[in-house]
């Protein structure tokens, strides 16, 4: 669309606060994929239901279905070693419940 000059009614310009967060200097950006799965000893009714649904859609090949979570986290840190350490802490403290869940993750630099 061509830029026509349109005469707008000029009113005092209003400039409220901006909201941008800048990346820290000397750091790298990583993307982690965290997988949270139920421990093998814990029953998974959701998985059973999904298996039954697959079978009803004629996917009889589906042998065992377990449902877990994928959490992707972007991290702004010094290096991969630091990222790994932080992720372990996050998983142990919050992301996984050790009574019923196990976790694993992959980290890539972006």
């Amino acid at each position, binding site marked *: 669309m061509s830029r026509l000059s349109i005469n707008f009614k000029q009113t005092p310009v209003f400039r409220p606060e901006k909201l941008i967060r800048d990346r820290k200097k000397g750091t790298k950006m990583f993307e982690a994929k965290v997988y949270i799965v139920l421990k093998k*000893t*814990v*029953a998974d*009714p*959701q998985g059973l*239901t999904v298996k039954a649904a697959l079978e009803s859609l004629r996917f009889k090949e589906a042998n065992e279905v377990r449902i877990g979570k994928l959490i992707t986290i972007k991290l702004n840190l010094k290096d991969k070693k630091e990222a790994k350490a932080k992720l372990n802490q996050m998983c142990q403290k*919050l*992301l996984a*419940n050790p*009574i019923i869940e196990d976790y694993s993750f992959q980290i890539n630099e972006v």
Partner: protein
Amino acid sequence: MKFGVVVFPGSNCDQDCFYVVKDVLKQPVEYIWHKDTKLDNLDCIILPGGFSYGDYLRTGAIARFSPVMKSIADFARKGGTVIGICNGFQILLEAGLLPGVMLKNRNLHFICKHVYIKTQNIQTRFTSLYKQGQILKMPIAHNEGNYYIDAAGLRELRDNNQVVFRYCSATGKDSDEFNPNGTLANIAGIINKRGNVLGMMPHPERSSERELSSQDGYFIFKSIVQWLKARRVW
């Protein structure tokens, strides 16, 4: 004597609990914001039901890190009275103040209906006004009420008489047929070893008045008041 009702972002039943304590029990009560850490002059803390932090990640998983929870843990360690209802129970489990974990209901649906529970332990400060084995009618309303603990944990709960309420029929039959959500051994409510922290999935604050379908839940609050009165040095 003073009650405190904790409010987390997403708590829904805080106002209901507050109302029962203030208007039905006629006891002093205040709200405790989840970021507050001072619990002065409180004798009983209620963690109400709801969806703290939307139940995102896992129910109770984020709320357990609220600043108030550390103070509640200290309060409990010193023998203070704590009752966690529904989401409150889930938060106590995640925080480790009660053993075990909550899983999704076995039918994978939210369930809201009246159920019957049997009082298994009347020696607690929460159940002293009931008779042994008394059957109570109370509503449940939850997505994750399926209590789980490993075999050793279950043994310990039984040995220490920590199972307080179990789901049953209107006449007291406690078979799996009357287990609404798949919970282990029909467990609906437990206390800690010391007996000062109770967690229960049914809602006593929804069954404390004549206008609502049952008044059986009222006596849990009344038991607490009685116990606190007996221990106060006036």
